[in-house]
């Protein structure tokens, strides 16, 4: 399938909406906020082969915010890592598609769900690539809320020390965490200066602008000295107007009426 990243992001959003609605599940807001990042990654950036998901030379992508797994499952199914029909089983009895990212699904590198786990693992993978002289890159997408976890800051301290220029972190900075605004729970600002002072290459973008996202990955890959972080300013619930910037949509599943309304909005985008 060859579709532009913007059309791809719309397909992901519709699949996410359907999964969450049919499973009566949570976490749609955080899945929609990172959708444009995933769409560019999976259509333009990652060197991956759906026919050989464990190809040794592949780029590694780790989703640290495992609760937003519907976005990743949709991207993988749309790319052909597994059958699109599999998405219908999401969160149902016996499904490999748990409602936190599960490595039993083809194309998923790491199971996540407990926050603050993937960046240390990504450091290990990137370190292995350096020690073995492998050219692949390791990408790790984090939420803003999970930057509360100290384990992330251990990894943020580690990566520049070991010159992990093959590591690219992305922060889905949607400004809302589980039980409040990031600013009011544990303020991260100035996040760019925090990463800069830890010796990271910092790139700050609008996380819904596909040109900016594409360009940011290019800049990150071009930095041969430091690990890079892309701070992507995003909107929780992006794409469905009544879900945007609402904490409620960290938890709520749409009603039938809301589902139809949301789908209509996505269909007209």
């Amino acid at each position, binding site marked *: 399938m060859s579709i532009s990243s913007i059309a791809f992001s719309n397909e992901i959003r519709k699949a996410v909406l359907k999964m969450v609605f049919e499973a009566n599940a949570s976490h749609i807001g955080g899945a929609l906020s990172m959708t444009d990042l995933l769409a560019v990654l999976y259509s333009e950036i990652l060197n991956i082969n759906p026919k050989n998901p464990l190809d040794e030379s592949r780029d590694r992508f780790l989703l640290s915010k495992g609760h937003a797994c519907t976005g990743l499952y949709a991207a993988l199914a749309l790319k052909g890592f597994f059958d699109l029909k599999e998405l219908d089983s999401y969160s149902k009895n016996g499904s490999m598609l748990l409602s936190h990212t599960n490595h039993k699904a083809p194309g998923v590198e*790491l199971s996540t*769900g407990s926050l603050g*786990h*993937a960046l240390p*693992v990504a*450091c*290990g*993978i990137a370190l292995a690539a350096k020690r073995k002289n492998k050219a692949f890159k390791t990408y790790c997408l984090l939420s803003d809320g999970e930057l509360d976890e100290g384990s992330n800051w251990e*990894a943020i*301290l580690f990566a520049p020390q070991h010159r992990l220029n093959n590591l690219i972190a992305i922060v889905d900075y949607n400004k809302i965490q589980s039980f409040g605004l990031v600013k009011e729970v544990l303020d991260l600002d100035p996040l760019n200066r925090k990463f800069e002072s830890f010796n990271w290459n910092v790139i700050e973008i609008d996380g819904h602008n596909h040109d900016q996202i594409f360009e940011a990955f290019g800049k990150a890959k071009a930095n041969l000295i430091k690990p890079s972080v892309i701070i992507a300013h995003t909107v929780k619930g992006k794409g469905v107007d009544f879900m945007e910037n609402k904490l409620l949509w960290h938890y709520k599943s749409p009603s039938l009426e809301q589902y139809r309304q949301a789908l209509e909005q996505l269909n007209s985008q």
Partner: protein
Amino acid sequence: MRTAFINQLVEEARKDEKVFLIVGDLGFSVVEPFANAFPERFLNAGVAEQNMTGIAAGLAMEGYTVFTYSIANFPTLRCIEQIRYDICYHNLNVKIVSVGGGYAYASLGASHHATEEIGMLRTIPNLIVSAPGDPIEAKAITRLLVKDKRPSYIRLGKAGEPIVHSGINNFTIGDGLCLHKGDQTAILTTGAMLKYASDFIQNNKLNFGLYSFPFIKPMDAIMLKQISQSYQKIITLEEHQRSAGFGSAVLECLHDLIEQKKINSIPYVKRIAIPDKFISVAGSQDHLRNLSGLILNTHN
């Protein structure tokens, strides 16, 4: 034990280029032989055990056989969720090594007493849990685990423990070891209590059986079955809390054997373990063992 471990690890790393060692800013005057011989397969991750354990998972995903190494509770309790989720759920080839099991770092205080980790770790699926009893066992277990792909934990003592075994043969993962058979009573130990139990039997000229169980998980059920059929009394001895440790694992296994109708009755079992308490005074390892009642008596 730690010397036996590191020497064996260096030997294995010479033969197997996948062996990787990560330390949590500890190992001064112990790990240097490995670090110097294999700088490309050595890492000091700093004082950051959660990250160290996540890194180990990432390296293992890329094909390395990774050993994490630190002391007391730091490579285990401090990062137990990384052990459970990153390593064990993904069934990765990581070996967690803790030096200073039990009260080995006696005077350093409760922060450095590793007296609960066996109970916590043995509930985690996929994880092998071991506590060698002397340097011979430590060396043999290191050799076995390098060849095994499963996640595992090794509780080591410190430096300078005496050798108890004259040698061990046909040893594989999960095996208990019989040092000598006896008459009515068998003492079963795990970890560094082995030497004390051996001395106790010799000094008192007792006709007791002595068994070392370097693996708490998997437990050697076949050996336990033989013991339960040969002795009237079993004494378990461990440098660990009474709850959920080695003695508990022995009782569970004996009960499973009854349930599976593999044995008809269970011998009297006396568990000697730490009675659910912290020690908050200074002292030698022997002194702390005494304070916790880790003592064998001829009338036990």
